[in-house]
């Protein structure tokens, strides 16, 4: 689904990303872990064509993301608060994203109804603009908005951060359900090794922009990761 070719990104002499080759297959969930500054967000930004790689390129469903915009109709993401429109209510925001992705109000409503648990009554019908919601609630809105319009590739950067434990558990269930669909590829980054090992069937560890571990999830994964980060 996604292929990375000789991708590097340098900022004033500092190499922040350097990946020779990485292939992410269709279906399943892909987890990206690493310490701060390991290049997780940089990689996702490059995948979304928000930054220009110093060299190399990324293909999404065979489309070079920096040359052709066709990937946008099958890809959706929630990276940070710059993916939210602060002066809209949650409903307005969902319908806006829906309209961009060719979904009418009924389609969006049907999708939203599946996330009542996840929203916990704190998102819909709030009569509040998104900018006035708490960080956690903003995140919930952003994550669900990224699921509108049947995307084939879903990119979530640090989705567990700022969420309360109950919501984290519900989010894990959502991600597991999504990745059970063979048509959907989920990409998740996290600082939390437990969450990632629980929801992802493949985990890549980034360190200073390079892939240092690439493992298929097994019983041993969490232990292996903990040992790696405890060095």
């Amino acid at each position, binding site marked *: 689904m996604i292929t990375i070719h000789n991708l590097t990104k340098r900022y004033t002499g500092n190499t922040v990303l350097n990946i020779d080759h990485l292939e992410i297959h269709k279906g399943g969930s892909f987890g990206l872990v690493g310490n701060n500054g390991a290049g997780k967000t940089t990689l996702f930004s490059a995948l*979304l064509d928000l930054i220009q790689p110093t060299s190399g390129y990324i293909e999404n469903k065979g489309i070079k993301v920096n040359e052709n915009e066709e990937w946008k109709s099958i890809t959706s993401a929630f990276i940070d608060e710059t*993916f939210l429109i602060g002066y809209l209510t949650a409903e307005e925001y969902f319908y*806006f994203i829906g309209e961009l992705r060719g979904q009418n109000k009924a389609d969006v409503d049907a999708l939203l109804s599946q996330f009542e648990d996840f929203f916990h009554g704190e998102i819909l019908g709030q009569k509040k603009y998104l900018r006035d919601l708490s960080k956690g609630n903003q995140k919930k809105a952003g994550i669900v908005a990224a699921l509108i319009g049947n995307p084939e590739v879903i990119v979530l950067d640090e989705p567990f951060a700022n969420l309360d434990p109950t919501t984290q558990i519900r989010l894990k269930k959502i991600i597991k359900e999504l990745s059970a669909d063979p048509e959907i590829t989920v990409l998740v980054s996290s600082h939390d090794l437990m969450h990632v090992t629980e929801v992802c069937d493949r985990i890549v560890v980034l360190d200073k922009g390079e892939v240092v571990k690439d493992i298929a999830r097994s019983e041993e994964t969490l232990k292996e990761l903990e040992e790696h980060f405890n060095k």
Partner: protein
Amino acid sequence: MLIPISLLVFLVIISFRSFVKDLYLDAGLATKAKNVETENLEWLNRFGKTATFLKNDIKLIKRNKRARSTVMVSVLFLFYGLLFFTGAVETYEGPVWRIFAAIFVTGGFLLSFGQFVPSWDSSYYPLMMSQNIRYKEYLSSKWWLMVIATLISTVLASGYLYYGWDVYLAIIVGAIYNIGVNSHVVLWAGAYVKTPIDLTSNKKAFGDKQAFNAKTLLLSLPKMALPMILYAIGHYAYSPYAGYAVVAVAGVAGFAFKNAVFSKIEKIYRTEKYKTIWAYKQKK
């Protein structure tokens, strides 16, 4: 002197109120789109996407102080013409200044809002850049917004009829030029402006280096000077009406090049994209 001014103020307030009431109801837009549905589906599809952004832009203006101030600027500029047409300022009495005034009277919103496209969307620019959005649709929504505002200003400016048909004719010609040429110039120049806008604060709306610096003033020269020169050519070569005709023709010609200009702006947007995203990330 007092009567015409108070009459104009009265007229502006009345019509402004009614337009605000009509314009800001999203329901009005929605029903409009629905009515069209039965006629021609393909056209609706295109209009539909533009309407999506248009609805958002109206919310942007309604709900954010900084954006609201552009509406205030356009109201202020409506009255700017009084300095010219009443003869209040002597240096403004030359015939060429009429076009200058007309550009301002009808283009207040266009100039103040347009110069910060796409900065208005700076706080969620990465969303716009990764969502399923075509640049043309995004641009055309901003263009429509400016055109609608210019048309409304032109109608509101009908108070200037008090000073004679000739004055209002100048205003209409100014509006045509604004729609045909200045709307493009403003979007074009805006593609290079990379100042993030903090929507919630109003502090920097007036007299701030972001809003009125030498560069933006320089960029506004072709918007002002060119129509004045065009008018002067027609005026001094033949007659005042020839001057108006030259400016109006320039406006219509600009309108005809809309697609070409949009493609050009789209290209600039694309080449500037990474720099723009980076610049918007730098917090004030």
